[in-house]
């Protein structure tokens, strides 16, 4: 194509050379148009986007027209119109350059990155300041509320800000400083997706106790013997309310079906919807003639609180998730419910440390097995020691096709996770599927157990779930399915 263009232009110029003055003008104009078109095509191929290509083109046209104007002026020909057009072209170039610079600066802000740097127990940030200065990196303590006596690892974690250009070299430099730095990891962002509505599944509810109008769309209640559990819960009183912490996208704390048991927190708004869905499954007020039922009979057993680890755009960081876990521990959560995770042979150290801190502080941590139809040991944080790992079953009580298996891990359990109805922000209700749904069902049950018997520790809680659980056809790969009625009665019997 290039060769054809050059030959065509050369032919035009040769013809023009031998042509009369009258014939030369259109030939030169055709040559000019061809050159302009060739230049435009070349620029659009040369630049990755339209803006810099047009900017370069307007600059070259402007300069070219200035040359032409100068040439005409030298030969006493009218040059002002050409000069005028050239000036406009250069002005357009300057404007586009300004827009481009603004866009670039916006892009650059997206290229900032943060590292989580854990120092040794007896080291201070001053000792790595030289490295940080070398790369122009800023820093702040990741978890200022955690002291060295509370947790030797988390108290020494710093958020170090840099740019993607410097990230690798800074990381290498920090990792090389083995005297002062114990661990470095990238504070990765997190991705989310918009919820959509699902089909409803009506079931026969003749004779059930609850007056919640949507209970006929909650097949999971029957599957886990929740109706029977409600009959029992009607006859007993909790020692105290258990606090279930939902670490997610926030929770719509004003939703009609959870408002009265929701403990206000910075996470009481949920633009995304995922966290509200989980919260409803854990603790929606039951037998209140509103919406759905959970195991929270008349709202007497569980209070729900939310920690927003993920932002409204569906992005978060390792640090924000770890911070949410620590905030839940600070607020004395009995159960921490984490319907989140990612593929990883081992959990990021900061999250693992935070979960271990929670377990040491008497919280029961319940996490999703994941939705990749693979072994949950390759999924974090389900592969953190001490957590209860929840897989999902469908209405046939078979392993949900998407559910990860969990029996390679220490504390596997399963619960319904397909077409599960729960809360949607704004007073609405929606069905969703995933191990994110089965997880808060288990968290709600653990909450009720601890409200009736607060002395139960994480190991005892899991043993009760396991021993009272129903053996299913797929239990070999996803563990037993919770039996709410039996588990609650067993918890009371252990008082």
């Amino acid at each position, binding site marked *: 194509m290039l060769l054809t263009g050059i030959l065509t232009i050369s032919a035009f110029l040769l013809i023009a050379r031998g042509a009369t003055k009258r014939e030369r003008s259109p030939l030169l104009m055709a040559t000019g148009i061809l050159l302009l078109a060739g230049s435009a095509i070349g620029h659009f191929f040369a630049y990755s986007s339209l803006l810099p290509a047009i900017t370069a083109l307007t600059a070259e046209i402007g300069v070219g027209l200035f040359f032409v104007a100068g040439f005409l002026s030298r030969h006493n020909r009218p040059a002002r119109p050409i000069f005028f057009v050239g000036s406009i072209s250069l002005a357009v170039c300057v404007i586009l350059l300004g827009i481009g610079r603004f866009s670039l600066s916006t892009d650059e802000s997206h290229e900032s990155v943060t590292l989580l740097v854990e120092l040794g127990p007896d080291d201070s940030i001053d000792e790595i300041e030289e490295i940080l200065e070398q790369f122009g990196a800023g820093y702040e303590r990741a978890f200022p509320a955690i002291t060295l006596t509370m947790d030797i690892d988390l108290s020494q974690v710093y958020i170090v800000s840099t740019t993607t250009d410097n990230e690798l070299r800074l990381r290498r430099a920090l990792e090389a400083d083995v005297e002062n730095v114990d661990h470095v990891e990238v504070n990765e962002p997190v*991705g989310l997706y918009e919820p959509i509505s699902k089909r409803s599944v009506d079931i026969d509810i003749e004779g059930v106790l609850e007056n919640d109008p949507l209970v006929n769309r909650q097949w999971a209640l029957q599957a886990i013997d929740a109706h029977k559990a409600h009959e029992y819960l009607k006859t007993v009183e909790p020692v105290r309310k258990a606090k279930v912490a939902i670490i997610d996208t926030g929770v719509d704390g004003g939703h009609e079906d959870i408002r009265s048991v929701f403990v206000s927190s910075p996470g009481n708004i949920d633009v995304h919807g995922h966290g509200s869905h989980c919260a409803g499954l854990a603790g929606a007020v039951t037998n209140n003639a509103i919406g759905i039922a959970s195991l929270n009979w008349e709202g007497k057993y569980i209070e729900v609180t939310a920690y927003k680890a993920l932002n409204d755009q569906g992005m978060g960081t390792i640090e924000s998730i770890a911070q949410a876990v620590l905030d839940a521990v600070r607020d004395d959560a009995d159960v921490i419910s984490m319907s989140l995770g990612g593929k990883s042979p081992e959990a990021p150290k900061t999250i693992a440390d935070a979960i271990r801190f929670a377990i040491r502080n008497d919280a029961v941590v319940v996490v999703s097995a994941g939705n990749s139809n693979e072994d949950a040991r390759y999924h974090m*944080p389900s592969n953190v020691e001490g957590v209860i790992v929840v897989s999902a079953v469908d209405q046939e009580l078979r392993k949900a096709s998407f559910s990860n298996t969990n029996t390679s891990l220490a504390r596997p359990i399963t619960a319904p996770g397909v077409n599960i109805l729960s809360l949607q922000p704004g007073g609405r209700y929606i069905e969703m599927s*995933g191990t*994110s749904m089965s997880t808060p069902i288990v968290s709600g049950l653990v909450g009720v157990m601890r409200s009736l018997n607060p002395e139960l520790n994480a190991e005892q809680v899991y043993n009760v779930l396991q021993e009272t659980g129903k053996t299913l056809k797929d239990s070999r790969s996803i563990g037993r399915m919770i039996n709410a009625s039996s588990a609650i009665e067993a918890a009371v019997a252990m008082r």
Partner: protein
Amino acid sequence: MNITDHIRYQDLEGGFWGILGDDGSKYLPVDGLPESFKKEGLSVEVKVEIVHMIGTVMWGQYVKVLSISSA
């Protein structure tokens, strides 16, 4: 990393579009897919970069799509 796989809609965790290989490998674009590629079964050639993330979807390997075209 270059992969040649199919676009699939996954009806879980609220629903999302992922990239599924014949060998069962799963890739989840962290920034989603361009609208024109959200077509069930569409065969695509994708250049991706693996990213280690945590999210609510928990499906496959999170990736950043560097380029994508129909196969």
